[in-house]
């Protein structure tokens, strides 16, 4: 298969990668760019573990071919913290036990970021609706919902 070279802005850094057309964005993030925080849970767009932000919108990295994204600006979980300082959403997930095995966590953090960027003060129903495309098998979502509410308070108070 003919490979093509594309340019991606990932977490504010411009990267150039040569990819086979059949490689998904998840493959390229994980294997070409060594950003293994993007997890692949189902490879058919249901579980949401591979969620990243494309121009601020959550998308499934397993359902996109990397070559579709030439020139795109992406945020992955590795782009959330500010150096040693965790992002308020990460802090809130830590403080409220919003994760157990940590596999779905990157996708949920990014989905939560997209939600709070658009709606800084969501109620419980809005939170559950917003994360309903991200499966978590460990937590029963209870503490994840609390984490996102706490993050909302943290962000609006700072």
């Amino acid at each position, binding site marked *: 298969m003919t490979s093509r070279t594309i340019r991606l802005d990932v977490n504010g850094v411009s990267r150039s990668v040569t990819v086979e057309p059949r490689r998904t964005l998840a493959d390229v993030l994980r294997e070409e760019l060594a950003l293994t925080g993007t997890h692949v849970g189902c490879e058919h767009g249901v579980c949401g573990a591979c969620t990243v932000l494309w121009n601020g919108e959550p998308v499934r990295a397993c359902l996109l071919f990397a070559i579709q994204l030439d020139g795109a600006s992406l945020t992955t979980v590795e782009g959330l913290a500010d150096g040693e300082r965790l992002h308020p959403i990460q802090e809130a997930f830590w403080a409220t036990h919003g994760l157990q095995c940590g596999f779905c966590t990157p996708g949920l953090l990014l989905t939560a970021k997209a939600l709070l960027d658009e709606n800084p003060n969501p109620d419980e129903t809005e939170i559950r609706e917003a994360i309903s495309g991200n*499966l978590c098998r460990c937590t029963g979502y209870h503490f994840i919902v609390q984490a996102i509410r706490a993050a909302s308070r943290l962000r609006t108070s700072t």
Partner: protein
Amino acid sequence: MGAKYFGAAVRRREDPRFLRGEGRFVDDVTLPGLLHAAFLRSPHAHARVRSIDATRARGMPGVVAVFAHADLGRWMKPLPVFGATPPGLAAAVRFDVRHAAQWALCKDVARHVGEIAAMVVADSRARAEDAAEAIDVAWEPLPAVADMVAASEPGAALVHPEWSTNVAVGFTHGIGDAERALAGADVVLEETFRIQRYVGMPLETRGVVALWDRRDGTLTTWNSTQVSHFVQQGLVGALELPPHKIRVIAPDLGGGFGTKASGYPEDVLVPLAARVLNRPVKWIEDRREHMMAAAHARHQTHTIRLGARRDGTILGLADRIFLDLGAYNVWGIVLPYNTVAHLIGPYRIRDMKVDVKGVVTNKTPNAPYRGAGRPETVFAMDRAVDCLARRLGIDPAEIRRKNYIRPDELPWDFGMPYRDGNPLVYDSGDFPAALEAALDAAGYDAFRREQPTLRARGVWRGIGISGYVEGTAIGPFEGAHVKLDLTGRVQVATGAVNSGQGHETAFAQVAADTLGVPLDWVTVTGGDTAAVPFGVGTFASRSGVTAGNSIADAAREVRGKLVAAAATLLEAAPDDVEIDDGKAFVRGAPGSAVDLGKVVQASIPTFAKPGVAPPDFEASAYHHVPTVTYASAVHVAQVEVDRGTGYVRLLRYVVAHDCGKVINPTIVEGQVHGGVAQGVGGALFEEMAYDSEGQLLTGTLMDYLVPSATDLPPIDTVHLEYPSPRNPLGMKGLGEGGAISPPAAIANAIDDALSPLGVRITETPASPARVLASIETARA
């Protein structure tokens, strides 16, 4: 031991790496020169392999090797089986158990969809998968059996013809005289309940990476497993190497739930490929493979007879139980006997008899999954109790009040063995207190008052109760090793694997308290066979109790060594030396305090003199537990049923539970929530469905419905604490409990909601179609 950390809601120490996306799951392990494996799997439920032609595949770009059974014949041995019957159990129950060889690469016959026919190794996963599609297999389909009850009958097609039957585990068992008790009952309820096939479905699939080092003949393998020492044992046989030449490392696990505690073909095949090709090899299961070939679970049929007096006093119980084991009897008596040992639960029943058949079918093999027989048996029992209550006109809460074993009746001796062969004796707890706590938290009485008004408005709401008593923390032991480095910092290693339960935090809490050091001095690793020679693994709600007590024992021994060394250093009697906050000091003389690092350093010999003590600040422990310890809970679910569509909305969920002494209450609560979520999945959504020919119908997460955030309500948890007398830390197991009662509680709530219609839910999941059908049946 001071309790500075034990019992505290400490923030989890493993979280920052997960929050930053810096965990290391098996797919994140990469090695120079890595090759990738892909598997060709049977598309048939039952078929003979006439021939395999890999000529085309071998010639494809990037392909390094293709292996069928004959190509690795020199290495092929039957896969390990689990669940040997312990002597104490074999003496009490006459089991008829059959096993058949399961090969990592199918030898001549595939017995379920997904069984491996060939392995391809190539320079990329995509090329390995391309080549797997180019292997030509001449399959000869054979008659398949898919229904467990039909499979048990004479004349059914046979999964393993050499047995002349499909019954792989058969036994009868009883206590007291059930038939006499039933004959003396005013009412005998008889009903058949069916629990579907549903599974752990960890969000991370399985995966194996293997590295063969020719230099010293060692094999290192990273495996997304809950049981690294079991994987090691399997490889000892397969690779013909001593255990110390095989290192199994469980990296970060993206969930396990039992699915990753079974033995699998790929555990052996990927290391074999690395050994034979002398190249590192990786295989990451895709979701489709996971659904067709990773262990399935549940799937039972109970025909239960429950006898009672008119006042609701339950007198006796008889149950005819079928379990669908899938194509191979991998787990022996484990699931069948677990089912029996948990049937009675919190009820005061002295007369019981069971007739049990574990049946093989042409489906994916079953293995224990969070609850392991308990959700099924509790569904049958608690549904039967509710049906009985309704027949007698007694409220479901009232019939439980009347029949739950009281705390003053503990210890309660069943007069039969538990699954580990030791006597089944409830050790501690208060089941009626859990019942009242759960009813209170759920607002049971208020709901009952409100229910008729709601019904009059066309709102069909119901409330359902289920309780269980669970044997947890099965032994015999877990391995732990504790050692100090030159600065007094602590490394704790255990055979227990962390798959999200917070081991790195909870076990550090135990070690820090026992040693007298700050929490952040402790590093915990789990599931590395090089760090602990003998281990068991994480399953059966066992790690907290078994590893926790082993870590405490080992840390206590190390503390003794520190005290002895510090006594010499401080020129004091050992009895006068205390350790706290990482310092040793003479009691009453805080000015004497020396850092533990100094104590270690003073023990190292110098050119001038020997150390103050041998510089041996490490210890291993393998704490033996006498038998399981009994955790218990009562769950209450509130639902609203849409009569038009059959859709069930879960409104509230309450859990009142006892897991003994708690290391970290936040982690405990999270475990309860997660268990409940999986139980709700089983109650309402999840099913691994097959057609009558054994073809899997649910191959994606679009077909197999894992609950999402909108499917679950907030979960209220009431913590009760009745310490276990069976281990020094007073703990009980916790991981599975949440998953046990939701199917029964929710089905009871649906029945309650629709009681004026006479609906009876006898089968899960209670999908809209099934609920509508039940309404239709009741109307007819």
